[in-house]
């Protein structure tokens, strides 16, 4: 494995390119940070390298040590997106501002291109659930959630992306669709969307809705980043549950929805997420190549239009 990099300073901020990126795992550090050749090029095949990387910032909150050093080294080479799982934007008590402060400190050092969290909640006053739990889609919750996003954006000093969740439950009192909730949230707070297309399929499977309707209803201008991942399905006799486990290849149905969205939206930064049973890097590179093919297929017309 590549030796742990020495600390370095420098401005890292670069926008996410409309290319395929990868959710970075420690076992793949040496794959995305190949040794440089004498002329400064990469020794690895450039087509296997990601266009950008995403990390869970909570994994790098340490005061020092190897993890922050790796992240700094990665950020020198790639545009980085921070995908937070710890703010709990939808908590009734409000977002976890201590966590936001930790995030801000890391952002000051790394200057990520994007920062995001989820349309969900994870914390009560005395419990911290390692899960993304659903929120009702109604006006009081929208008011509450929009205030939380504004509070976090003000503390971070920048706008953020909010990810559509995978849902196993819909509330009986919902008064608006998820798309309506998200669009209104963006309008009120100027946040953007992290559009997770696997989550669209998971929610549609569990709640009996039409995923294509969701794909077609999202305004591409709001989307700053796309997530693609695999999911599991459980057969319970008369009902099927889709489980958002990020533990397998992107499903064919998800690729089809992605193609449908990119055909309308044009190329967008697209992440391959794989968080459980993480495979060899070559498998992730194969998934990135499939995403690149979709981006290339729909790229030209949008370049001309631009």
């Amino acid at each position, binding site marked *: 494995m590549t030796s742990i990099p020495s600390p370095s300073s420098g401005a890292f901020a670069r926008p996410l390119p409309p290319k395929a990126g990868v959710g970075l795992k420690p076992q793949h550090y040496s794959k995305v940070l190949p040794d440089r050749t004498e002329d400064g090029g990469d020794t690895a095949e450039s087509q296997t390298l990601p266009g950008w990387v995403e990390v869970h910032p909570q994994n790098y909150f340490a005061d020092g*040590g190897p993890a922050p050093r790796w992240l700094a080294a990665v950020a020198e080479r790639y545009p980085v997106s921070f995908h937070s799982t710890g703010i709990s934007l939808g908590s009734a008590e409000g977002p976890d501002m201590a966590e936001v402060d930790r995030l801000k400190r890391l952002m000051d050092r790394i200057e990520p291109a994007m920062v995001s969290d989820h349309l969900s909640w994870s914390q*009560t006053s005395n*419990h911290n659930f390692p*899960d993304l739990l659903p929120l*009702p889609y109604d*006006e*009081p919750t929208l008011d509450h959630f929009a205030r939380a996003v504004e509070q976090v954006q003000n503390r971070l000093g920048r706008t953020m992306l909010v990810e559509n969740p995978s849902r196993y439950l819909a509330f*009986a*009192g919902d008064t608006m669709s998820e798309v309506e909730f998200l669009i209104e949230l963006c309008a009120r707070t100027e946040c953007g969307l992290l559009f997770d297309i696997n989550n669209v399929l998971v929610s549609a499977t569990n709640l009996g809705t039409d995923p294509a309707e969701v794909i077609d209803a999202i305004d591409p201008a709001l989307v700053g980043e796309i997530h693609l991942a695999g999911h599991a399905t459980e057969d319970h006799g008369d009902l099927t549950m889709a489980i958002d486990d990020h533990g397998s290849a992107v499903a064919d149905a998800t690729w089809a929805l992605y193609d449908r969205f990119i055909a309308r939206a044009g190329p967008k930064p697209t992440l391959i997420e794989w968080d459980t049973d993480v495979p060899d890097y070559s498998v992730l590179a194969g998934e990135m190549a499939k995403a690149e093919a979709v981006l290339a297929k729909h790229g030209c017309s949008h370049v001309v239009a631009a």
Partner: protein
Amino acid sequence: MGVAMSSLHEAQATMARAILEGPSHVPGDLFEGSAKRVMMAFASHANTVSHARLVALEETFPHARELLGEERFNQLSRTFLDSGHGSDASLGDIGGGFAAWLAGQNVGEALAIVQFEWKWLESYRAAEALALTMQGLAQLDEERLLATVLDLHPAARRCDANAALAGILGLPQSEQVLLVRPDAEITILSLDETQNHAFSLLEEKSRPVSNLFAGLSELMNETQILPAIIALVGAGAVVKKEQGPC
């Protein structure tokens, strides 16, 4: 009961209770769909929460798990979590109280392994600092050397050791081991009695070298003092504490 008539706070408290205490607490009228679907959804969330916490403990204490065996470790982990420990912690910190809780569980030599693995994680995450080196000390004349204030490096940790831990680490058995991370990598060394005394004095408070010598002279032969300090400095366990303006 729709959420519009309830509060978000009540809805989340209800959901938290259902996840923690099981199916009988799942609210039947808060969600759309059949009772079976709602039940399955809560089972999925409860499973995600439980699985993530158990995996976090496994990943924090891999050697203790190996020593205890998978089944015993998982049973202890479940009991620890089911009794409410770590419920408000992030996954990275969930193992913080595991050693203290295990002390009452009759786990034998595994307790020292758990304590060591938590100290290892603390050292791994600790702040960067420039460790004092022998070359740095050698540049000082005697007066400045004796006035130099020493402190423990933020990543330096000491841990009780036993035969099982020594075997895992491939070190000769000693009563204590030292974890240091003067640069990026953690290294682990056995501590002898004199080094242990020196570590204790620096752990108590930062001290000028002269004071450290005086303190150690009450505990050991004078010929042992310098080697003990050199051993800690050479390992990267010590930093020079900068003095503020008078």
